[in-house]
């Protein structure tokens, strides 16, 4: 891959995506610079998870382009995609650890499949990453024996085992208590420091977002409302952004005629 260090690591242009006939993403433009921690924020149903799936190449867009580390995800050959995915790490919302394997085997899996290393070297690398996420000594446990916070940290260890250039987090604080969630935030900052990765975090937790973000992208109903630094987002006058910041319920406008029609099923 021949690309300069200043080129954006993620370039999304005019991305539109549907789920069945429902439009989920509408003309999204989205860039992430190298070394940046970017938060994608939005309420439920804003399309943030769908955007993440498109970034990971798990869904293909209706139209528009997704380039990751210079590779066009929709047009990449199997070989290019393989190469790209070795440079990407993902920590899924529920961890997505393989329940039939120990924590250590889980973390080792990408190494086993993609690198030709002997068992001892792989073991050492696994322990190194477990140290990074403060899980040293837990490699022999099964995922079912771990707490929620530990599962997330083990998932992070697996995500960074190949030393990716780009790391994704899907709702890192979902289902965690405030202390564990704060620890996870610290860990994200530390990972960037230590490994110089670009990090994209999808979340709806404001506190965590404000703590770790370089810039925040706010999504609503499949559109980008704004992208900016923490103070810029906090001072944004847009009513939907303010709704989100102040936990205000949406003010749905009721049209009497539509309402009646919905009720009668016509």
């Amino acid at each position: 891959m021949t690309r300069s260090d200043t080129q954006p690591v993620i370039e999304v242009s005019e991305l539109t995506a549907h789920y069945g006939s429902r439009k989920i993403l509408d003309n999204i433009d989205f860039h992430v610079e190298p070394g940046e921690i970017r938060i994608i924020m939005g309420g439920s149903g804003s399309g943030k998870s769908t955007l993440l799936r498109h970034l990971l190449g798990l869904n293909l867009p209706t139209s528009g382009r997704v380039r990751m580390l210079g590779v066009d995800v929709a047009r990449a050959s199997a070989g290019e995609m393989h190469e790209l995915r070795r440079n990407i790490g993902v920590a899924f919302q529920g961890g997505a650890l393989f329940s039939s394997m120990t924590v250590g085997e889980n973390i080792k899996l990408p190494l086993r499949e993609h690198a030709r290393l002997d068992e001892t070297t792989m073991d050492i690398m696994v322990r190194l990453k477990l140290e990074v996420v403060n899980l040293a000594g837990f490699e022999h446990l099964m995922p079912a024996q771990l707490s929620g916070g530990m599962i997330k940290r083990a998932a992070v260890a697996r995500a960074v085992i190949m030393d990716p250039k780009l790391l994704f987090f899907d709702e890192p604080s979902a289902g965690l208590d405030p202390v564990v969630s704060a620890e996870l935030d610290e860990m994200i900052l530390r990972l960037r420091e230590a490994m110089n990765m670009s990090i994209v975090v999808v979340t709806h937790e404001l506190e965590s977002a404000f703590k770790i973000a370089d810039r925040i992208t706010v999504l609503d109903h499949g559109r980008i409302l704004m992208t900016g630094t923490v103070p810029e987002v906090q001072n944004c006058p847009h009513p939907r952004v303010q709704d989100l910041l102040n936990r205000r319920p949406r003010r749905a406008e009721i049209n009497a005629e539509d309402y009646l029609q919905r009720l009668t099923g016509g």
Partner: protein
Amino acid sequence: MADTAGQSSALLIEHLGRTAVAAIEEFGYYFLLWLESLYWLLFGWMKKQPVRLASMAAQMVTIGIAATPIVTILAFTIGVMLAIQGIATLKTFGAEEQVVMGIALSVTREFAALITAIVVAGRSGSALAARIGTMQVSQEIDALRVMSINPVRYLASPVLAAMMLMVPSLTLIADFAALLGGAVFTNLELGLSYAAYLDRTLGSLVFDDVRQGLIKSLVFATIITVIGVSNGFQVTGGAEGVGRATTRAVVLSISYIVVADMLFTYFLNR
């Protein structure tokens, strides 16, 4: 009135059309999945993404070795049942002695392969759908994909290989067990010695009879794998979806097995 009748028949036709399209789509999915699993088995090592022998071996143990006792017992029972029925039917013609040939042919051509496939579908086909379906629900399949570990190579190919080896092996074991069952009952009922039974069995069997059963068992192995894996991958809707996929996998594979059996019997006996 006529209008609503027209409307409902239009709806019926639309429903029929959609069902047909969905069925064809699903069949295409099965076929592609089968092709892809074979592709990784044959050419994966060239792309440095081989199908792991260790996971194949693990599958062979759960699919084959663990099923051996139940297959043996059921096949033995089938052998006894065929002997009972055969003797009762042939008695009317005074030709009880011919029962040996009847058992030998129907076991090797038909029943050994069929009972093995049904047991494996019930044990492993359902487990396969449940395991892959659970992985789908908990995003483990997505995790495999973003780690650039092809889920078909990692999950489906080892199972296909294991099934292609173990189902025919189990069928052979079932052949022996069912023939033994027949021998035991014939011995008790007609006083036919085991040596004479063996002699007549070997006399009435040709290699092609056993081969017919083995060819069928390869087809059944493919059906169980492809249907189990596909239904697992297609799970949506959480735990309930996994349950539905599991049931569907078993019912569909047994149905396809019986239909395929009929078709193969027809074509192999022409």
